[in-house]
């Protein structure tokens, strides 16, 4: 429907996005738009292409056709580290942290300075870095564990650490792939609280299966099925959509 210039107010505009793996279209002619400061949750059955969508946005997978515009910049033609620099942050499904480094060092690596080879060689751990690391560590409940090796953290703490690593980058669009999977009930509650606090001044794109958690945080929900949008709108609208009930929520 909308070809050419999309309205400027969208932070992220995905249009006619298609990726095919050996003929199988994991994402098929997908279009959706994310506003500034919006929390969008993507739900859908296994194999619907949810994670693939995040992979396409952050550049891990190259699109077969279609466009992804972030603040008017075309992401499909950029390399992964350039996409990060434009302000897109991605959390992976399994906690993706550096086990051999301390919590402090994990956070420090994500601090957005000294990202070139020479910059990394001459990087100094100054007060600005230390303050920011401490600030983020406090937010993600790991203030007392800064000097602990990351492999000693619990599963939930590892998830928080990775969220913290993204926070320290201060992205405009934060993408989270199942942030509460495998967490205990109390950890879930804390994570919801954490997410509600960190969404200020940024947009968040979340994949999640936990419907209670989705209801808590979502502004708008997109339901994916077989690489295409099945339904989109508020949680209430989506929940009562017969197509959604049939393929996903009914089970």
């Amino acid at each position, binding site marked *: 429907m909308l070809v050419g210039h999309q309205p400027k107010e969208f932070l992220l505009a995905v249009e006619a996005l298609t990726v095919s793996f050996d003929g199988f279209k994991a994402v098929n002619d997908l279009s959706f738009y994310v506003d500034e400061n919006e929390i969008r949750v993507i739900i859908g059955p296994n194999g619907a292409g949810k994670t693939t969508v995040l992979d396409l946005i952050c550049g891990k997978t190259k699109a077969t056709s279609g466009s992804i515009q972030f603040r008017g910049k075309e992401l499909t033609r950029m390399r992964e580290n350039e996409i990060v620099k434009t302000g897109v942050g*991605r959390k992976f499904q399994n906690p*993706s942290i*550096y086990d051999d*480094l301390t919590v402090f060092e994990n956070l420090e690596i*994500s601090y957005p300075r*000294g990202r070139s080879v020479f910059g990394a060689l001459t*990087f100094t751990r100054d007060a600005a870095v230390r303050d920011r690391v401490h600030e983020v560590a406090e937010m993600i409940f790991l203030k007392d564990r800064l000097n602990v090796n990351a492999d000693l953290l619990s599963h939930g703490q590892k998830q928080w650490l990775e969220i913290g690593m993204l926070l320290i980058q201060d992205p405009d669009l934060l993408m989270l792939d199942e942030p509460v999977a495998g967490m205990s009930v109390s950890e879930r509650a804390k994570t919801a609280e954490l997410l509600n606090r960190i969404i200020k001044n940024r947009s968040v794109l979340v994949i999640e299966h936990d419907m209670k958690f989705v209801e808590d945080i979502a502004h708008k929900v997109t339901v994916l099925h077989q690489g295409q949008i099945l339904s989109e709108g508020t949680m209430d609208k989506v929940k009562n959509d017969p197509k959604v009930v049939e393929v996903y929520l009914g089970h």
Partner: protein
Amino acid sequence: MTDNRFFNRSELIGILVLAVFLVLVLPLTLDVFRLNLVAKYLTYAFVALGLVVCWGYGGILSLGQGVFFGLGGYCMAMFLKLEASSVANTKIQSTPGIPDFMDWNQITALPLFWKPFSSLTFTIAAIILVPGIFALIIGTAMFKRRVGGTYFAIITQAVAAILTILIVGQQGYTGGINGMTDLRTLKGWDIRPDHAKIVLYFFEVGCLFVCIMIAQFVRHSKLGRILVAMREKEDRVRFSGYSVANFKIFAFCVAAVFAAIGGAMFALNVGFMSPSFVGIVPSIEMVIYTAVGGRLSILGAVYGTLLVNFAKTSLSETFPELWLFGLGGLFIAVVLAFPNGLAGIWGDYVQPRIDGLISSRKPKPEGWTDSSVADGAPAE
């Protein structure tokens, strides 16, 4: 606990102990012949040091470090060979003033690429730049295309094989299978007599410590932590805004330059250079030195190299045909039982006991060296 950008306190002690061991203990206890052997072994320690940065920290296993060792060694040997081939020295040749092997191969003029090597300044620059740029080209071609792991290791082996074949095949330009022999003087200073060997040994140890300091600096920089991070979760580093390929290229180039300095030292200390230090087998041996020393330990690389080479010399003198089996067995044993090599044994078993002793008694730093070497024995 980081005291500065190069080392923390316990590392400083380790470096001082190594310095005392190499500068005082070995020269005072060994005769010149044995000391020169140590000098030869230490040339491999440069390679092992580079492998700690590239393989240990960065997770990039190169099975072709002999290539860079060879490039550095040949650059140095070309300079020394030119100096040894003065017209006065070579007047019996049909073309005086060119290296003897060229004369034997009916070459009548010095090839163009040899000419700049009559300058020592050019040679020193070439020792660093030729392998550095070569590693940059290989690294860029591989890592930008996301070639890594086993595939990268196999390609480095292929490069080592190709370079060996090239050197052997072009014997008019390279000295062929015999290499460049009969190297005599450096700017008129004879490198063959005993006192020269001693001077060269100390010069080499000095260079080794410069490289150790560079490695320590890299390790303590954020770049060092990024290398470790990359080894574990490459994608996380990439999606934190880093160009993973550039960091891999950097680590590979550092390893290449270290190896090349080692090769140049080899040509100086041993007095010749041949393709037998370039190919696949020596390249793999160099990886074993690093593995035995502990691939995460900068100082372990030096001890591992010395230990394996001492064992090699003494065992191959007694049982020449068994040595290769011994080396293979050693590698398997280390990988299976002590994945962090000597440094791992030291950190897990010896250090805690010493810490216990120190807390009850005054420390005796000199004792550390002896026990570290003695404690190395079980690693075999």
